[in-house]
């Protein structure tokens, strides 16, 4: 085994896929100089040259539209959106065009575009650099969405996304960029649509997305001996691995979904809807969502902390649900 950071895993996935298929290229702001602001495109220029690593002006609408047209003309773009908040400049190409062309054209065109965007709060970057839009894209027919939370998944899911013939939004998390993990040598992929049982348990199922996987695992650890917590990281939000989630709830009888984006109409609501619809009889208690506050993300640390689920507050929420 060797050690790799989450950021390096992203670079590695891109380099491997670009070596495998010369239709793959990367486009985005500052990606070409020194591996990008967050070093997520290191090594590409050296291996593949400027042609395949395209730094753009600050024109998100145009370069996301470019990705749509390039895909229609047979290429396989990887688009880097520096912060997912900036995708709001490009919602027309992304939602009106990219998500719909396959369908609208009666299947003539495929849309193999991967959008890499980092999301999430926790670094005091305030309301316009901390959002998470997985719920929006889950509500947008035509998009797949994944949220890698480990180094292994960062590489494996991204490679699957690049090989997929559909638009896939890969939501990365900058808090994890410098996380190091032991990983295998060589290549691997993680299939889109397969959840990971991050920890087994029998009293309650915690479905935790993105960075909340980590906090949920910490909470589970803190509860050891008192409550036996199963932690499931869906990894892919669309398509969602209901089989794994239902099997877990079937065992524990209790469901708590933890995510960072705002609670109202978040993906927690969708997971609850489906568990209730498909596994009502499994439930020993009302399934709940414990998620980000229904506020913009505040700058000040005291408030930012209060706006997001934390290990301690997850522990409290679990205790409440199991009556411990």
């Amino acid at each position, binding site marked *: 085994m060797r050690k790799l950071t989450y950021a390096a895993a992203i670079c590695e996935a891109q380099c491997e896929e670009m070596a495998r298929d010369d239709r793959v*290229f990367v486009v985005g702001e500052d990606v070409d100089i020194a591996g990008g602001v967050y070093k997520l495109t290191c090594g590409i220029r050296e291996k593949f040259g400027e*042609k395949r690593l395209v730094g*753009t*002006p600050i*024109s998100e*609408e*145009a*370069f*996301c*539209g*470019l*990705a*749509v*047209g*390039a*895909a*229609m*003309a*047979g*290429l396989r*773009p990887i688009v880097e959106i520096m912060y997912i908040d900036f995708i709001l400049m490009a919602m*027309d*190409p992304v939602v*009106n*065009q990219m998500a719909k*062309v*396959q*369908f*609208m*054209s*009666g*299947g*003539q*065109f*495929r*849309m193999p575009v991967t959008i890499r965007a980092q999301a999430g709060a926790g670094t005091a970057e305030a309301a316009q650099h901390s959002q998470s839009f997985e719920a929006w894209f889950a509500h947008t*027919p*035509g998009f*797949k969405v994944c949220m890698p939370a480990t180094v292994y998944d960062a590489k494996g899911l991204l490679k699957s996304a690049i090989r*997929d*013939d*559909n638009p896939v939004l890969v939501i990365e998390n900058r808090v994890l960029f410098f996380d190091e993990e032991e990983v295998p040598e060589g290549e691997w992929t993680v299939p889109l649509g397969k959840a990971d049982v991050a920890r087994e348990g029998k009293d309650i199922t915690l479905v935790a997305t993105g960075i909340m996987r980590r906090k949920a695992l910490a909470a589970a650890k803190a509860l050891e001996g008192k409550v036996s917590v199963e932690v499931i990281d869906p990894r892919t939000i669309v*398509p969602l691995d209901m089989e794994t989630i239902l099997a877990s709830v079937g065992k524990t009888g209790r469901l708590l979904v933890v995510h960072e984006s705002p609670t109202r109409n978040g993906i927690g609501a969708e997971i609850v809807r489906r568990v209730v619809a498909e596994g009502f009889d499994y439930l020993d208690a009302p399934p709940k969502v414990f998620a980000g506050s229904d506020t913009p993300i505040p700058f000040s640390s005291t408030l930012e902390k209060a706006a997001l689920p934390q290990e301690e507050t997850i522990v409290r929420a679990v205790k409440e649900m199991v009556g411990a």
Partner: protein
Amino acid sequence: MAKKNQSPNAGVVAAEVPKELKLHMLRQMISLRRFEEEVKRLYCAGEITGAIHLYVGQEAVAVGACACLRDDDYATSGHRPHGHCLAKVFDLNRTMAEMMGRETGLSRGRGGSMHQFDKAKGFLGGNGIVAGGVGIALGAAFASKYRGTDQVTVCFFSDGASNQGVVHEAMNIASLWKLPVIWLCENNQIAATTTVARSTCTPDIAPRAEAYCIPWAICDGNAVLDVYRTVGEAVARARRGEGSTFIECKTYRLEPHCGIIADQRPKEELALWRSPKKDCIKRFEALLVGDKTFTPQEIEAMHRRVEQEIAGAVEFARKSSFPAPETLYDNVWAEGAKS
């Protein structure tokens, strides 16, 4: 860098254009016109539904421009795409079937009037979003350059669309990277109910390209040979790797903005543009009769033939079946997955 070509002498150009090409262009122009007139009838009869934006009056632009293109070149369009689609793809049957929501339509009935696509002939779609095709055109041109081919892309849009931000972003990028894309602005002087004077701070739109060091030209959009020549030069430049051009074609739409909603424009103005002096088809016919390329009888015969082809297209569409409800989820995703 910039250049301005206003209404060159079409007669001079006409002499250089081979007869078959003139025949092709006239036939296409008549087909586009008759197609739209038929669409209007079917719309009023309830056989076509939805939002229908007719191209009547602007045929010289689509036809003149697409006559410069190969099948492997690309074009994008907007909410008024019938003319561009026909001129690039020229499949009356499948275009009409699409309008009528049939499985045999270009987009299998999923797209309708605003979303006709044809991959084989490089037609990258109409678009329901004003300026929605701009980024797509940039991407197609990028792909050609990436692959090292000499394909070009024509991006059709109108005066209203020119005020969308993405046009500015895309021109900057096209200029920076010398992409083989032609920005073809059909200035038909109005956007829905808003005239150019109320939407745009300059009378001409093409000179904006100067802000991006993109060569530009203004031409008479109702003179098909002027369009053909101007776009032809731009296409040649693009194929030589010299990058983008902006062309503004001055023209006029003869039907209301959408469907059969009331038109606010002065009756005399409409009448003028429908007159032989302005109408692009009548003008081209007069030119071709005048220089003896065709006889009036030949032209008359062409009209009758087109009439039949259009009738055939309607017949084709009517006989085709509607998509089956259980195919609703087809192509949401490439693998046709259901959830």
